[in-house]
């Protein structure tokens, strides 16, 4: 079985700088494996180990996503090999475009049975790209996945629904987006990181992938900082905590919220 883990190399928005006019500067923010993606690596590895499968990591983005540290960070998480598309033409690409490029790469890898992804990316957080990827491939897509096992030629997926858990059997290839707590990812140790250096990485050429050119359908109008509301911002004097507690309590009782 060939399992692809589609992950993102992205920066945490906390490290980005937002100007007073709402423009976002990501230049000082450092990329890393996106927060919830390690869960996908773990699920993929567990699945592969139960059926003698192979795990291929896949990520796409701007040229800067390909560094020795970035390769090790992925390959040390239970991958057998890594595939990347690292091209500055993808800088700022929207989710549908990213999904299209991922689909092109999955087709280029060939014979893929399942793609596993994290719940959402740390820097966008729309929970959408994995499902768009499924559609781009013409495959089924399932969200909120907690577990996946192989049963003959099918995949048996456990996914959360309102009020419970369903078991869904997929008769063909499928893209699965895992919940953020589907598995506790193991932390790569020295052994895994050393081993990572011995595993192959293939960088695919964006132009050679079978992906339509992006259509410019969105024009930016304006940006703004989020309205954080008019809060009072009363800082209580921490030098005398009992008095501060009393003052706070009185104020909260007064306004009726306590």
């Amino acid at each position, binding site marked *: 079985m060939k399992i692809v883990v589609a992950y993102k190399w992205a920066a945490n928005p906390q490290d980005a*700088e937002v100007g007073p006019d709402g423009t976002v500067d990501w230049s*000082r923010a450092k990329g*890393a494996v996106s927060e919830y993606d390690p869960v996908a690596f773990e699920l993929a590895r567990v699945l592969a180990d139960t059926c003698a499968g192979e795990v291929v990591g896949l990520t796409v983005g701007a040229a800067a996503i390909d560094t020795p540290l970035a390769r*090790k*960070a992925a390959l040390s998480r239970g991958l057998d090999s890594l595939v990347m598309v690292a091209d500055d033409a993808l800088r700022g690409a929207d989710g549908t475009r990213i999904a299209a490029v991922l689909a092109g790469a999955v087709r280029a890898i060939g014979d893929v049975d399942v793609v596993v992804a994290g719940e959402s990316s740390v820097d966008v957080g729309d929970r959408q790209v994995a499902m768009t990827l499924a559609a781009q491939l013409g495959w089924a897509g399932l969200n909120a996945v907690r577990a996946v096992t192989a049963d003959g030629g099918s995949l048996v997926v456990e996914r959360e629904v309102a009020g419970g858990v369903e078991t869904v059997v997929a008769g063909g290839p499928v893209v699965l987006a895992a919940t953020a707590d589907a598995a506790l990812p193991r932390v*790569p140790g*020295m052994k895994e990181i*050393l081993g990572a*250096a011995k595993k192959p990485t293939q960088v695919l050429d964006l132009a050679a992938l079978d992906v339509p050119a992006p259509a410019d359908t969105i024009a930016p109008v304006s940006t703004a900082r989020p309205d954080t509301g008019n809060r009072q911002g009363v800082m209580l004097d921490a030098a005398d905590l009992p008095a501060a507690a009393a003052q706070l309590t009185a104020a909260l009782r007064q306004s009726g919220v306590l």
Partner: protein
Amino acid sequence: MTEAVEPDFDVIVVGAGPAGSVAAYRLAQQGLSVVLIERGEAPGSKNLSGGVLYGRVLDQVFPGFADEAPVERRITRHVTTFLTPDSAVSLDFRSDRLAEPVNAVTVLRARFDPWLASKAEEAGVFLMAGVRVDALLTEPGPDGSPRVVGVRAGEDELRARVVVAADGVNSFLARDLGLRRTEPTNHLAVGVKTVLRLPRAVIEDRFGLTGGEGAAHAIVGDCTLGIGGGAFLYTNTESLSLGVVLRLDDLVRSGRTAIEVFEHLLEHPGLAPYLRDAQVTEYGSHLVAEGGAAMVGTIATHGMVVVGEAAGLTINSGLTVRGMDLAIGSAIAAADAIVEAVAAGDVTASGLAGYRRRLEAGFVLRDMATYGRAPKFLERTGMYGAYGELAADVFHGVFGLDTTPRRHLLGVARRALKESPVTVRQLISDGWAGVRAL
């Protein structure tokens, strides 16, 4: 003694700060296999400096580094200021001679450290990030004392001929082997720092700079609320590095927190013109070893050397605060000594003695000795209040024309001295001690 298991690497370097990365680079350049282990997800993520790197020593390793590396500004202006609640007396030195060859540069560690580590990678060093070393692997040494043969992280072990401990001021590795005890608090200071964003043009305007020039301000007096220490203000390309360094014992005695003192500094009217409209961003604190040469203990033992801050190599001379250049100097010395020792097949303490020899021959330990009296001098409390007031009074006597008849400078000084808690004897004693210590 049975032959040890074949090591995984010739050298394990723990900590990818300036000391670790330069040591790793220099070792790999000379043909050894090196792994550089960093506990942060990326080099620099867990590191903090005031921000000034005296770069000549790095030029020896990477000639012309200031053109290639992500440095902020090249310092051509040094200002030392005595601050009182309502006055500031400053010594302002600027010189073109400081620009070329490059002397001091400001850096931001989160950008600079990754560059240094990537140079090491280019030279063939295996960089391993996100791994925290838990323990040293040791075996009984030739004289009964332990011989370091590797490191352990979690359940994994890695073996090497030599381990370089470049793991910072709280060096876990140095303490694991008993080479450093917990320092007495008069050997330690706590540094608190923030980076404040300001547009490039505003910085250049406010500090009188053009192009990539930079200014470094050292401030003493009212800014530390009577606690031993001082403040610094450095210019980066589009931000300022502002911080305080406070003697830990003084701080504890005062009952205040470092954050309180820092907040006072942020709001000091003497600094307000520089900081107006600047946006506070990251904020961090760091312990600084200030014990001087007394703190540098054993830095080479069987199978291990200690470099950088882990070896206590920092200098606060009152006029300059140095850590990175000493770290780099020690890294060069250690790397060259290790290459020598590995070639000779002797990595015992005596085999690695070339490290200390090189440190003593170069500037590192000599400067530590030269400024050896600085910590003791800086303990004298006059620095932190009375002298600032005295100087301000003298200058006020000169410049404050209030229609009372004028005196000569000597008369002004004597009058100011009379009203100051400082005595002539103290002044002379401190002056004499100062010029011999700083």
